[in-house]
């Protein structure tokens, strides 16, 4: 995991759902509001599960991209 002030990269490649959601959930617990977390995943289940979890928790999905069979989801932590 790489961290840079208000942006964080969360590498959950190879992990299958719900583990990416668990890792994101745990990371957000220690991240201040306004942090931008880029989740990098290979399990396509994240396309459904992370937005659902973010809707429940009130975090904002900033963007979703598929790059070379990897899924990059930017999550803006609620303030």
């Amino acid at each position: 995991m790489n961290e840079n002030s208000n942006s964080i990269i969360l590498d959950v490649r190879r992990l299958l759902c719900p583990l990416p959601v668990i890792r994101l959930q745990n990371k957000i617990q220690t991240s201040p509001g306004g942090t931008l977390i880029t989740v990098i995943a290979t399990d396509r289940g994240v396309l459904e599960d992370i937005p659902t979890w973010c809707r429940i928790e009130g975090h904002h999905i900033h963007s979703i991209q598929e790059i070379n069979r990897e899924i990059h989801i930017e999550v803006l932590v609620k303030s």
Partner: protein
Amino acid sequence: MIGKRKAVSLISGGLDSMLATKIILDQGIHVEGLNFFTGFCVEGHTHTLRKRPPDKPKRNNALWVAEQLGIKLHIIDIVEEYKNIVINPKHGYGAFLNPCLDCKIFMVRKAKEWMLSHHFDFIITGEVVGQRPKSSRKQVMPIVAKESGADDTLLRPLSAKNLPATLPEREGWIDRQKLCDFSGRNRKPQIKLAETLKFSNFAQPAGGCCFLTNETYSNKLQDLWHARNKREYELDDILLLKVGRHLRPNKNFKLIIGREEGENNYLEGYCQQFTHLRILNYTGPLTLLDGVFNAEEAHLAARIVARYCHGRASERVEVQIQSPNEDPRILHVTPFSPDEIPSEWLI
């Protein structure tokens, strides 16, 4: 002044926990959900690996339920703690390696810990008396409450009227008359209640929510323990048991052969850790070799893998074998015919 009472609900993603939670929400209780990740969950892990019928949504049902109900869901990784439940279940196994009663006690105990640390008042589950042959008998309901430490803070809204009143009922936090009296394996009352509450598109039960209730999966786990001469596992072990076709020609090694593109993609992630085989001159599966093997056994493995590629009828198949940190080697093999693979190799 006492604030709004709070309940923590064990959310599996199935209909019963959804209904139980809704019943309590409708009585003005604040409810949050807990969902435990054991590593054996059917939920989630398989839905992206294998092709599914188009009518089956690719979603995590526990999250879907939480969103439908408008509650928070806390997904908790209990993989490490759960090992002892699988390996040494006090109350034994069900039909396969499913330690259902110990599992239920453990999860309610974890819910009790969460309840105390988050200042909640009681626990709810979607259990129905008599629904499952071992872990839901009326006689074992008090065992779960007692051994988990939850005691009378454990409320089962779907069967509450068949059970002694619990703390939230006695204290008047909820109205017992508005709870249910479901029992047995007949699911019609739940379906009817779901219709009344206008729930649709909920997950239908399909062989349980845990791979340990699956005979084939349990056989693979037994085989793993037998081959290693010890009853232990790591998360990757139990995840790989869900993937591919497993064949063990000898006690010292086995093959994990991808059955379709999704499984091959998943197995790719393990190529840095395992010796793996690829078919070069035909379309074919990615295969991992788990264990130790000699050159003759590697050749045997290549012939097995070749049997599952599109060149299975040909005389010669090129198989690349590569071990971690080594250069790949090419083997030219004749594929096994189906009757050359003994059925006892298939786990």
